[in-house]
């Protein structure tokens, strides 16, 4: 068999298959079309018949088509072209249908959103003419009284303006928040804008309520402030009177007392002439009582000053160890008179930010008390230690001790605790009260460990950094 015959058979089979599959293409399939299908089939059929006549020639059969086949081929290219453009048209039609369907779907979606929206949507132009309004928008337009909803004014206003508009009758007034967005006008048409109206009546009512409540609170605050100012003024007057009283008392009491003590000392020293033993003894009692009374007056004045806030604090960096050493040395005579061993022990450098004079006063009172309540032959130890955030001063004695139930009471004014029915010791009973008040003013803590008959240990913790706002000198 010649190659040409093979090619003709292959062509015949190929065009036959193409025709078969061409028939299997559904004419109504998207983008195909009846015209495209059958023009294609026609084009293929021409070559199929031509191929068939060629094949039949090899079997000795001559067909009529062979004579006209060449002329029939002339139709092939136009038919293919026709088929192709039919499909192009079908595709365009399909695309247009799809676009239309998508547009319709989008339009339906937009309409559904607008109609079910709780906000009113209105499209209006600068003349106030409404070209679109959704359900709620139409309802608002129907409710609005003349002049309430100035659409033209809103459209002419700032494009993104937000405003609140009251709409409706007085008894059914509702407030609307209006948002306006300008649209690009088509050529020759008036400027338009989309207005979105939200019902904010509840919010406005609440805001009014809150505003009224705020005004009420402000009035109340003003009233209370004036009351407080009046009370403060009265307190200030009372405080001034108290300060004045203290100053007067300080002068009126201390001046005669100093005279009594001073002149009794002069007389006891024999500077105003010789004294009999009875006179000396009685004058001694006068001097002792005067000294005691002076101490009492000083303590009372001191605690009054602290409580009234007239005891200013001067903070400075203090070497607590050195300071306590000096203090203990100054009180050594007092201890020696009672045959008490007084010692000071420091562990390392200890620094704190505090008022040195007030710290001295605290520790002096504690040491004085320790000496006072320790029997001859006992010990008083002052220990200074450094902890992480504080300096710790401990005044420990081997005195009478304090029962646990009395340990809080000793800080009350004019209180002294004596075990059994022993007589009160000399003193005003104000020392520890003053100590606690001073500790409070310095941010220190004062604590006590004591057991009756075994002694007491008062501990003062002085923060390394003063906790208040005062400037450290």
């Amino acid at each position: 068999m010649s190659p040409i015959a093979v090619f003709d058979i292959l062509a015949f089979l190929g065009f036959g298959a193409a025709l078969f599959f061409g028939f299997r293409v559904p004419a109504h399939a998207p983008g195909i079309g009846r015209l495209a299908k059958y023009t294609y089939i026609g084009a293929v059929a021409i070559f199929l018949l031509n191929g068939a006549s060629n094949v039949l020639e090899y079997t000795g059969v001559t067909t009529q088509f062979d004579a006209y086949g060449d002329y029939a081929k002339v139709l092939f290219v136009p038919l293919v072209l026709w088929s192709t453009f039919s499909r192009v048209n079908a595709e365009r039609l399909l695309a247009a249908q799809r676009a239309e369907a998508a547009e319709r779907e989008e339009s339906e979606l937009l309409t559904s959103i607008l109609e079910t929206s709780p906000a009113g949507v209105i499209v209006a132009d600068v003349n106030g003419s409404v070209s679109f309004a959704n359900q709620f928008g139409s309802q608002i337009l129907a409710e609005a009284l003349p002049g309430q909803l100035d659409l033209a004014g809103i459209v002419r206003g700032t494009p993104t303006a937000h405003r609140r508009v009251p709409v409706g009758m007085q008894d059914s007034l509702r407030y609307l928040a209006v948002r306006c967005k300008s649209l690009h006008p088509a050529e020759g048409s008036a400027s338009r804008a989309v207005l979105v109206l939200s019902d904010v009546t509840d919010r406005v009512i609440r805001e009014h309520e809150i505003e009224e409540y705020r005004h009420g609170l402000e009035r109340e605050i003003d009233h209370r402030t004036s009351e407080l100012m009046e009370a403060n003024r009265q307190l200030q007057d009372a405080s001034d009177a108290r300060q004045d009283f203290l100053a007067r008392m300080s002068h009126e009491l201390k001046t005669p007392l100093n005279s009594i003590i001073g002149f009794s000392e002069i007389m006891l020293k024999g500077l105003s002439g010789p004294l009999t033993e009875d006179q000396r003894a009685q004058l001694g009692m006068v001097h002792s009582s005067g000294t005691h009374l002076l101490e009492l007056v000083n303590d009372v004045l001191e605690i009054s000053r602290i409580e009234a806030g007239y005891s200013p604090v001067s903070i400075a960096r203090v070497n607590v160890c050195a300071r306590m050493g000096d203090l203990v040395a100054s009180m050594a005579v007092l201890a020696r008179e009672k045959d008490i061993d007084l010692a000071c022990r420091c562990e390392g450098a200890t620094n704190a930010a505090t008022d040195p004079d007030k710290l001295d006063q605290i520790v002096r009172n504690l040491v004085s008390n320790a000496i006072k309540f320790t029997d001859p032959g006992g010990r008083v130890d002052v220990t200074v230690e450094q902890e992480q955030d504080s300096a710790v001063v401990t005044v420990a004695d081997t005195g009478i001790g304090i029962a646990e139930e009395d340990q809080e009471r000793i800080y009350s004014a004019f209180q002294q605790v004596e075990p059994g029915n022993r007589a009160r010791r000399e003193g005003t009973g104000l020392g520890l009260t003053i100590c606690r008040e001073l500790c409070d003013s310095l941010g220190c803590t004062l604590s006590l460990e004591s057991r009756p008959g075994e002694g007491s240990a008062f501990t003062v913790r002085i923060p390394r950094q003063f906790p208040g706002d005062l400037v450290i000198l």
Partner: protein
Amino acid sequence: MTYSESEIINLFLVLVLSPMLAVGLRELRFPGKVWSEIGFSAIALGLVVTVLEGFVFPDALNLVEHACYAAGGICGAVGAYLLAKDARRAYRGAERP
């Protein structure tokens, strides 16, 4: 130098209409498009060669002509198969609610 009138018309149509066909095909996207284009090109080449064989290399070009038609038939069949398969699937899909 032998040729018929129909061959000259075919040559004219191939040369004039093929560019238009190419423009139309550019807008279409379908499976087997390349096979169909190759098949059409092979047939168009066959039609051109049919005219040429009357002037030069008659035997060789006659063989080429028949080979082109064979290639056109086979490629066209593959293209038609792929298009039919896709179109039937799309048709069934379009019918489904």
